[in-house]
Every structure is written in structure tokens, then in C-alpha cells.
């Protein structure tokens, strides 16, 4: 017994380490500053109406945030975000059923796999046009339709592959100890699927937000895509860019929250050993 107890004491972080981790990573701060500097430099070689500098951009963002009527930012961002979220949630639910069925039932893999890979080959613009042709100009249906048909196959493939990486030996262990299906999901499958679930959420949200705008350009009367199209038709480059900035900031925030949540969920992994065995045999 003695002697063994001293080994492998990893993963207990000291207080300094914790403070340091709360501060922004100097590398990412540096890269953001570099992008901003490059932006400013680049803008110097264009007229401001084609490519505004940082000050011009800030002014434009101010204009966006102060907009009223059909340019009301709360209304337009709200509508777009609503579509993104509904599209994302529907996609996730569909992808979970589809991907997990494929992963858990080998017999279902062939039946469900072929349509999935076919869906993956359809260009999103085609879905957008088809959506408008089939449903006309709609408040939510076309954007959500496009988001779901494009995003859910990606997510389903991700979840299916994630399930393939689950350690069968632990599933067998759970059977040997008579764990119920609920217990097995909660303690064996879900924790192993967490990285996949986070990756799938990131992918889903990022793609859903981009597609929502495309679908809005084609088939909606409100939303960020509609406003961006309006400014595009008026050759107002500054406002086309400025309308995208708040959503970029929002997606950054979401990404940060997801990162935090993922680190919290992975606190059982000793520091610096993600995916590897650390303790000596």
C-alpha cells in the first residue's frame, strides 16, 4: 500500500494558477490586436465608403444600434436570433435521434446513412430557393427550414461518430454491474459524448447563424439578412459590415460560455492531460 499513495498526485491546481487562468490569454489578446491593426492598415488603401477604418466602423455600429423602424436592431437581431435558435434546437433534436439510431443499431446504419449523406451534398442555396418556391415569403418557416436541412445532417454525422468513440468496455462494465439504461446513459455514454456534444453545438450554432442570414436574404421580410441586403443594394459597404459586428460579438460570447462550460464539465481530467493517460501503471 505505502509508496503507491505518493504517486500520481496530479490535477490539484494551486491558487496562483487559478487566478492566471481567469485573465485573458495573452496570445488571444495579441491576435485580436493584430487583426484590428491589419484592418486599420488595409482601410488606409481604400476610400471609406468601400472599406471603413476602425473609427468609421465604430460610427457605423453606432448607427446600427441607434436604428429605428424597419432598421430597429432589437427587432431585427431578435427575429434572426429566434430563427437561429429554433433552427438549432430542431436540428439538434433531429440529429440526436438520427445519429444515435445509427450509432446504436447497426441495422439502422445503412438505412439512415444514405439519406443523410445525400442531404449533405445539397448546396444550401438550393434549399433557400426551394424554400421560397414551396412556402413563399414567410416569417419563420423558410429560414428555419433551410437551417434545419443544412445543419442537422452535419450534426447527425458528428453525433454518430461521437457514439462510435464510446468505450465498449465501459458499456460492458455497466452491464456486468446491472446498471439500468438510464444509469448507463447518464454515467457511461453522456460523459464520453460531452466533447462531441460541445463540438456539435459550436458547429451547429455557427452554421445556423450564417444560413439564417442567407435564407433571410431570399425569403423573409425582417431580420439581419433583409437589412444587410437593403444596404447591399444601396452600395453601403460600411453598414453591411457594421450589421454583422454585433452578431460576431454575440457568437464570441457564446463561444466563451461554451468553453467555460466544457472546462467545468472536464474538471475530472488532470491538467494538461486531455485525452491521455497520466498515472503510471
Amino acid at each position, binding site marked *: *500500500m505505502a509508496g*503507491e*499513495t505518493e*504517486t*500520481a*498526485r*496530479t*490535477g490539484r491546481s494551486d491558487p496562483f494558477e487559478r487566478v492566471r487562468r481567469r485573465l485573458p490569454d495573452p496570445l488571444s489578446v495579441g491576435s485580436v490586436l493584430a487583426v484590428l491593426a491589419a484592418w486599420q492598415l488595409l482601410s488606409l488603401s481604400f476610400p471609406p465608403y468601400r472599406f471603413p477604418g476602425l473609427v468609421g466602423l465604430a460610427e457605423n455600429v453606432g448607427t446600427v444600434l441607434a436604428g429605428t423602424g424597419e432598421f430597429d436592431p432589437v427587432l431585427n437581431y431578435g427575429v434572426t436570433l429566434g430563427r437561429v435558435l429554433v433552427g438549432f434546437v430542431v436540428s439538434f433534436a433531429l440529429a440526436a435521434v438520427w445519429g444515435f439510431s445509427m450509432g446504436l443499431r447497426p441495422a439502422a446504419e445503412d438505412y439512415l446513412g444514405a439519406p443523410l449523406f445525400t442531404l449533405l451534398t445539397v448546396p444550401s442555396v438550393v434549399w433557400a430557393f426551394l424554400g421560397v418556391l414551396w412556402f413563399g415569403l414567410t416569417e419563420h418557416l423558410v429560414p428555419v427550414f433551410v437551417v434545419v436541412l443544412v445543419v442537422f445532417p452535419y450534426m447527425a454525422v458528428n453525433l454518430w461518430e461521437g457514439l462510435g468513440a464510446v468505450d465498449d*468496455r*465501459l458499456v*460492458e*462494465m*455497466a*452491464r*456486468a*454491474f*446491472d*446498471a*439500468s439504461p438510464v*444509469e448507463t446513459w447518464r*454515467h*457511461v455514454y453522456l*460523459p464520453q459524448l460531452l466533447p462531441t456534444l460541445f463540438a456539435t453545438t459550436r458547429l451547429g450554432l455557427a452554421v445556423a447563424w450564417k444560413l439564417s442570414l442567407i435564407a433571410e436574404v431570399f425569403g423573409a421580410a425582417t431580420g439581419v439578412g433583409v437589412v444587410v441586403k437593403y444596404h447591399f443594394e444601396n452600395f453601403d459597404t460600411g453598414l453591411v459590415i457594421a450589421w454583422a459586428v454585433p452578431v460576431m460579438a454575440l457568437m464570441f460570447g457564446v463561444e466563451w460560455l461554451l468553453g467555460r462550460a466544457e472546462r467545468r464539465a472536464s474538471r*475530472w*481530467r*488532470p491538467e494538461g*492531460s486531455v485525452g491521455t*493517460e*497520466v*498515472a*503510471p*501503471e
Partner: protein
Amino acid sequence: MTALLEGEDLTVRFETDDGPLTVFEGLDVQVEPGEFLTVMGPSGCGKTTVLNALAGLVPLERGTVRYDGEAIEPGEFSYGYVFQEPRLLDWRTVAENLAFALRGAGVPEAERGSRIETWLDRVGLADEADSYPRELSGGMRQRVGVARALAVDPEVLLMDEPFSSLDDVTGRGLRRDLLELWGETGKEILFVTHDLREAVTLSDRVLFMDAEGAFFDEAEIPHDRPRDFDDPALGETERRLAERFFAELG
């Protein structure tokens, strides 16, 4: 004396891409009450599958499992399983790993805490209840695996080469502790190994399996307990059995 756990005419075949693969056919095995029985054989001969067939973890093509004289569905008897790898839930603490098994065994919640405490203490890990498995050494993790199997208070302990991936010193410590626990609890143990020395040191009786998955020999290990692992008499028995064993395997 009737056998406690008995497999009769056990036949396991797996479907592979190259057609069916017979792991073993018509195999009989009996574990007597209180016995430490070891299945010994070369790697890949199907020893582990014997455990898994009795435990209901692989489907039987044919055969009967009996417990206390009555035919039962494979696995429908009280057993604890110690695997070759610890097979712990790395994302749950040591105590939660034991709790997972206790819930499966239907142990009421009020009783779980004291059981976990008792068994962690008995395998020498009383201070590690709140540690995560990755924070422990390989030997400590395997101890958690042993504690988990014993905590469900099984009638039979199934052990699949539990010490084969540990270094000599750690393995020795665990073997000694296992014999002690076995002496205290009086469980039946069905043990699998490819290490003859380990088989001789631990067992009452050893079944020898050949590469085709058939038992070709059987030996009682008559030495008194507690056994001294360095006893030359054990070494002598090992040498004698090695001759019989390797002559057959050619």
C-alpha cells in the same frame, strides 16, 4: 458436494467477416462452494469468454448455466466482476464509481455510504473516496475495481487477469490482499490468468485450457494457506505443472 456455479455444454461462436468463429464448444466448468478456481491458458484461447458466457455478457449458442443446482439465465446470479483493465468511470470520483455499482445491485441509498467507506478502507483507499481515477496510480485504480466488485456483496467473484498489467511489486501486494479478502469473505472466485505462477499461488484448483478453447488438464493445488509466495514448494509445484502444461501445448 454439488457445484455452486456450473456451466454445462457451453458453446460460444462469434460471427466474423470470415464466417463463424468457434471460441469453445461443449465446455463444462464447475465452481465448488468456497473455491478459488483458476482458468489458465495461453493468450487468445477464450478464457475471458468463459467468464463472460457465465456472466451473460456474451450470448451462448448452446449450453446451460446452473447456480446452486438450478438452471438459470446466464448472468442471473450474484457476481462481481474485476476486469483486466480497471474500467472505471474516469469522470466520477472513486466513491461515485462504487455507488454506480451499488445502484445497479439495488442497494438502498441509506446503505451505500457505509458500504463504500467499508470497502475502500478494506482495499486501503479510505483517503481516496473523493479522488478521480486519473489521479491514482494503476495499482490503486485496480484496487478500486476490486472494491467495486466486492461492494455489491456478490456470491461469486469473476476476475479476468486483474493483475496482469501491474508491475511485479504492485501485483504481489494486490494478490496478497486478495487472498486475505477471500479468506475473510469466503466468496467463490473464478479467476482467469495466463501466468502459471499466479495460478499456483492463488488457487485451490487450476483448469488448463488449450489454444482451441478446450480444457485438457486439471490440477489441485494442495498447499496450505496462508501461502508464502516465496515458498520453494510452490515453485516446485509450478515447475511440475509447467512440464505437464507445455508438453500438451507443444
